[in-house]
């Protein structure tokens, strides 16, 4: 009995040691033969299980793109649905290679946390949904209201700051599961339901009588949503960052899933040639093959195609808003491939 306990203790310690240094994520992923992505548990449009049992969505497409870039095969992914409160620990201890979750880039989550944000892939902002019957037209009329939210997010702090600065009181009812927050709001527990506007639209699509509810005009916060990686592996961070940049630059240069093969053979555009690995051998500098970005675009299309498929006109029907390219008046601006 005593020996087996000691064996267990040593085993546990070895596990601690084993999960210690994850400096070479690229090698781990290649050796494992698949990429492990931490994702939001269930949110329409971004990360959800479709009626055939396949996990899909905007966030998942980025996981596919990275797998295609690193392993040459977009299907070699494993998605781990994580509650917001569990996700950081999973990344820190090496349980996932990247969080393609819906986390807002903030100071405290980056400085001193051992984690880095890769690149903003959705510009969102916090909004409020209320019942039309309440007659509320503005967040400023919510003084004293009960607000249902999902905890472990920036939502709580944004509300605290906003209501405090406008000298209003409020009552927070915060749920571990974001869908329970919606359900409680629907049951009348709260006057308002708050989340990122994209999430309100996504999760709101399953409200029983969506037309009885309205999203208020104010956006009370900036929510730059970005994937996260461990800080101790800058090489891996570069791979993730430039894979996502490639998807954005692809849209700017007119590379789509449909024409990528054609452009690879025939495009005269020097940047297209560099992105698709025809010239300059950029992939090698990341420790990848030269057709890494080609593989990613071939697998999921460019940023605009991904957006349209899940969030835009073919998906949730949301306007692209600030998530348009900079040259179309949006905020998406990827550095040049040069």
């Amino acid at each position, binding site marked *: 009995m005593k020996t087996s306990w000691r064996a267990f203790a040593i085993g546990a*310690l070895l596990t601690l040691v084993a999960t210690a240094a994850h400096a070479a994520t690229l090698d781990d992923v290649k050796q494992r033969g698949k990429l492990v992505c931490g994702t939001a548990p269930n949110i329409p449009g971004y990360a959800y299980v479709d009626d055939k049992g396949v996990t899909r969505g905007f966030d998942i497409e980025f996981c596919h793109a990275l797998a295609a870039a690193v392993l040459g095969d977009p299907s070699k992914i494993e998605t781990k649905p994580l509650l917001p409160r569990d996700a950081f620990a999973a990344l820190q201890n090496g349980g996932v290679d990247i969080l393609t979750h819906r986390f807002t880039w903030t100071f405290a989550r980056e400085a001193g946390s051992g984690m880095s944000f890769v690149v903003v892939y959705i510009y969102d902002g916090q909004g409020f949904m209320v019942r039309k019957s309440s007659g509320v037209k503005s967040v400023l009329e919510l003084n004293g209201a009960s607000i249902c939210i999902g905890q472990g997010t920036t939502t709580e702090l944004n509300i605290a700051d906003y209501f405090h600065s406008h000298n209003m009181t409020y009552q927070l009812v915060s749920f571990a599961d974001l869908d329970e927050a919606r359900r409680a709001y629907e*049951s*009348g527990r709260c006057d308002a339901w708050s989340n990122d506007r994209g999430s309100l639209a996504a999760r709101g699509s399953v409200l029983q009588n969506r037309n009885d509810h309205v999203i208020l005009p104010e956006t009370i916060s900036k929510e730059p949503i970005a994937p996260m990686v461990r800080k101790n592996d800058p090489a891996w961070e570069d791979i993730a960052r430039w894979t996502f940049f490639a998807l954005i630059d692809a849209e700017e240069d007119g590379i789509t899933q449909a024409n990528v093969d054609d452009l690879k053979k025939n495009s005269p555009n020097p940047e297209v040639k560099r992105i698709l690995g025809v010239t300059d051998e950029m992939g090698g500098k990341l420790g990848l093959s030269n057709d890494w970005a080609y593989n990613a675009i071939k697998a999921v299309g460019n940023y605009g195609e991904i957006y349209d498929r899940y969030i835009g006109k073919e998906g949730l029907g949301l306007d692209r808003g600030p998530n348009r390219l900079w040259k179309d008046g949006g905020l998406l601006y990827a550095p040049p491939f040069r």
Partner: protein
Amino acid sequence: MAALLSLAAVNVSGNLERLGAASGFGFLWHRAGFAIEQHLIPYSEDSTYFRAFVVAVLNTLVLAVVALVIATVIGFCVGLGRRSSNGLVHGVATAYVETLRNIPLLLQLFFWYFAMLRPLPAPRQSISLFGIAFLSNRGLVLPAPVAEPGFGSVLLALGIGVLLALIVTRSLAQRRARTGSAPKAWPLALALVLGLPLLTAIATAFPLHWEIPHLQGFNFQGGMTVLPEFVAMALALSLYSASYVAEIVRAGLDAVPRGQIEAARALGLKSGTISAKITIPQALRVIVPPLGNEYLRLLRNTTLAAAIAYSDLTQVFGGTVLNQTAQALEVMAMVAGTYLVINAAVSALLNWYNRRVAWVQR
């Protein structure tokens, strides 16, 4: 073993350093910045993380104590019902136990929460109880006692009363042991406990008034609120645990040999005396150890609170604070450590009580 532990500690801190993660408990003194709806001590967004921790621990404890008391009372009643010769009582008690202990607690929690929220009206249409308390889907709003200057002396008088009552009871018990006769202690003790604070209150012109809640804007202002999350948690936890307590009680009573009770009847003892002197003391020996386990289980089950937004230790600290500070190791160590301390304390208390009621071998 100590060497292994310190090796683990060094390893963990080394790993954190490699990750570039900040460590230590300095964050406890930073501003928390988020609100907690149910707080038994003053708390605001400007309070520290440590204060949030204390608020959360108190919320866990108050929930556990309330659920524990209700579970015990219901459990004993149902346990007795299971042994009843009345078919209806026996049937209801059996149905209760078999239903509640065979449905996962989390489901019961959601059931009570949403089953309670749905039929309750919005604050403006709330059900008024004599115009001083109001029931709506925001909870039960009650008048709150507000202390005025002088209330402290009433509390002090209560304390002195309790102390004097204890001394009187003890000395009378000693006199009875010595001489074989002494006056009953309880009338005097009761007079001391109730009378002293009452006299002080009259002298200080009742330094307490009640704040009546009133509807303003979206919600009630003033008074104190029992949140629906708390009620749902307390209901679900206590009803679930009661089904186990009932079986423990039944087992304890069944463990007393029927022959003893028949013998006692044959000797002409009254049924009350049989219960007090024969059945219950022996049943307690069987009941107390598993009952202790059930209490500890109930305590641990309070961690399900995060599912329905009740601000317990796990929800506030293991959820919000962990996410804001990203100091997973420190926060989880504090949460786990706190549960360990609370459970170990309850366990020690139950062991002490168990030794008191246990069979004394001579």
